[in-house]
């Protein structure tokens, strides 16, 4: 187990380095740069000579390898540099935005899981065919709802018409209800879809018939055998959904005016704010690595067979 963890950490470091380097190269390859965008902007009214001076002071025209080593050196010491556009240390921006996004993503994901399992369990327990069909129709509906539209509709109805939850100064936790729903509904769809499918498939397997024949109750069959086995493919999808979760968070943050990583990224992309983007890329890579590690560690807990065949799992 220790060896396994060490190997995974080694892999993670490699992934982080690759993400950092690729992002660095791609950002360099883009036309223009943050300094040009900020200071060439006619609003600043600077002369060509003044812009040249500013470029020199930021060292943006020094050779690539030197800039690369400089940036990676700073990153290793925890110095993410400054946002050229916003004029604040990137570290402060991340410290401000990360908790918002984490809260939105984690709670959104939990809510999505809750919705998915709710649909799955209800569809299996119900006696009514129409209800079952209706529940089966929900995931395709949910996945086709654009996050942007959903957010606006929720605000229009809940906040502006019914006046239940304000969007402006709603309070820290109350303000999360609508954004979480906005993030959760589209994410819950693929989860529910996979879960429903896996449950249908497992129900028809011989071991389930055996369990039933032995006299297990409906609930025991469902929770102990069907759901447990259906969790494995669902978990895999859950790991992959992180990307979608982040994309949903970007849109949700814009609609609700939450200042999270998504908003930050959008502004940084607009201004080609390299330091901010590097930090965001590395942060996202860390999140991906962590989530996938957690997913891989969770497999053996669900399926003991995966525990014995060491090394063959990944």
């Amino acid at each position, binding site marked *: 187990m220790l060896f396994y963890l060490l190997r995974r950490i080694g892999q993670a470091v490699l992934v982080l380095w690759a993400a950092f380097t690729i992002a660095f190269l791609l950002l360099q390859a*883009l*036309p*223009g*740069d943050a300094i*040009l*965008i900020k*200071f*060439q*902007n*006619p*609003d*600043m*009214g*600077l*002369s*060509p000579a*003044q*812009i040249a*001076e*500013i470029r020199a*002071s*930021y060292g943006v025209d020094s050779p690539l390898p030197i800039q690369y080593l400089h940036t990676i050196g700073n990153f290793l010491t925890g110095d993410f540099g*400054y*946002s*050229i*556009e*916003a*004029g*604040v*240390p990137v570290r*402060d*921006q991340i410290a*401000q*935005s990360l908790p918002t996004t984490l809260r939105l993503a984690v709670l959104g994901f939990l809510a999505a899981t809750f919705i998915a399992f709710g649909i799955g369990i209800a569809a299996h327990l119900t006696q009514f065919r129409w209800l079952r069909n209706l529940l089966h129709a929900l995931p395709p509906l949910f996945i086709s709802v654009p996050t942007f539209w959903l957010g*606006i509709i929720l*605000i*229009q109805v809940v*906040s*502006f018409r019914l*006046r239940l939850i*304000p*969007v*402006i*100064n709603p309070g820290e936790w109350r303000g999360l209800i609508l954004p979480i729903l906005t993030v959760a509904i589209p994410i819950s769809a693929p989860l529910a879809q996979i879960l429903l499918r896996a449950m249908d498939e497992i129900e028809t397997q011989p071991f389930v018939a055996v369990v039933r024949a032995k006299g297990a109750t409906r609930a025991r069959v469902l929770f102990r055998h069907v759901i447990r086995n259906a969790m494995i493919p669902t978990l895999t999808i859950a790991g992959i959904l992180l990307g979608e979760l982040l994309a949903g968070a970007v849109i949700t943050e*814009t*609609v*609700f*005016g*939450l*200042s999270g990583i998504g*908003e*930050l990224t959008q*502004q940084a*992309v*607009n*201004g*080609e704010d390299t330091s901010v983007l590097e930090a965001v890329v590395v942060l996202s890579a860390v999140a991906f690595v962590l989530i996938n590690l957690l997913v891989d560690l969770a497999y053996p807990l669900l399926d003991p067979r995966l525990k014995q065949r060491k090394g063959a799992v990944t």
Partner: protein
Amino acid sequence: MSKPSFYLHLRRAGVLAAAISSVSLLAVAAAFADDGKPVTGGTLIYLEQQPHTNIYPPSAGFYPNGGIVNQITDKLTYQDPKTLKILPWLAESWTVNADDTQYTFKIRKGVTFSDGTPLDANVVAKNFDTYGLGNKALKLPVSEVINNYDHSEVIDSQTVKFYFKKPSPGFLQGTSVIGSGIVALSTLAHKYDDLGRAPNIIGSGPFVVSNEVLGKEVDLKVRPDYNWAPPSFTHQGRAYLDGINIIVTPEDSVRIGSLTSGQADFIRQIQAFDEKQVADQGFQIYAAPTRGVNDAVAFRPDNPLVADVKVRQALLHATNSQEIVDTLFSANYPKATAVIAAVAAGYKDLSSKLTFDPELSKKLLDEAGWTLGSDGIRHKDGKPLELAIHVSIPQPQNQAVLQLVAQQWAKIGVKLDVLSGSAGNVVTDNLDPEKTPLAVAEVGRADPDVIKSEFYPLNRDALLQKGGSSSKVESFTDPKLNGLLERVAAETDPAKRIAEAGTAQEYILDQAYEIPFFEEPQVFAGAPYTHGIKFEAVGRPSFYETWIAAH
């Protein structure tokens, strides 16, 4: 919790709810009792579209920045937005020498910054030394509005004198603009990269930054000891409001819905097509003019396609600004009648030069040797008359405007490609006349200097002249234009200066160097119970005299 007490709570809650609803009924009644007398107290909730960026005052031109800096800093002089006259503020009086190279200001006594330090001649001198010359060590850039600055001299604690290398008649107005907000020495000691934090900007204004959530919110609170508003104001002393809550709300429909559902009091940026629904619900639309160079497209004559004045004139007369205004905008966007707005300083009605006349356009293009091909596009020497322009995101509905222009030009056989790209793409392409023979132009500033700012090669260089901002320019330069612009910037007699501004504009339109479309406003909306919202000369709100009636 045991059951009985739970029920007790419920009953109490019911009583409370009844009490609350009767209180809100009273509040509604009070709203009708609004007698027009300013009320002190309350917090204004102001929704901004974008987070502020770096708010070092010379970088505060960006409207989200200006909305903050205008409340927390004062300026040496105050420009009356109606008359455009320069009136005393932090400077009680001033003298200027005959050739506008020396300005002496008497600074008002008793003014302090929010950190308690005094605002005296020394601080003012340090401010303009920084704004006029920049600070290389701290990476603080030079201000656009201060040209030819040489040095300052502190004569006594309340008197400061500024010296210029060349006549600089624009400087006096320059002391009144957003970029010349006076800040404390501690602010000037920060490096540029740290001035995106609102609490680092220490001013002497009626409000102080009390809290900032980066990218999301800036809270301002009143300075109870503020007592140095421009003497021309009827209101003196502290601001009426206790505070201002500036909240970033990027989504248009959310800003508008929050206002109309009573969650916010004042919002910035309402598109023309949304104005009606806001006004219909009894909310007030404020369209503040920006009093500068109109929303326009400028040519880059270095590109051979538009080097011929006849081609440029043809495109100018093929443009139907009236149609642009009628189809896309509202009455708050007046059709352009000159290079600068009708309410700008130095305006001269040149609408006779801006006629819509497609027949004339066709004739001019024929004369220039561009003949209509079978594809509906004009050609000359085998080359099509196909031009490209990048959409400018800050300008209202710019994509729709340019697409409409493209349709208008297609009727005379000219193809306009409307491009959109990443910011980096736009900046680099816009520096290359080969790629973009046209670019969107607009500047707000209520001084004739604005014309020089826009077109002079060492300023914004809208036409891209050789020796200006782009190294890609092969040969285009217009010494006659530059001479006219220099005269606008250097003429010391105000009346003559206005005349020079008129001459420069006439020349620009005769050469068809740019095609003005409309006068760009800054559009805001406010709840009916918010009163006393004022705007500086180019449309940034000032909340000093704002008050909220009971509602």
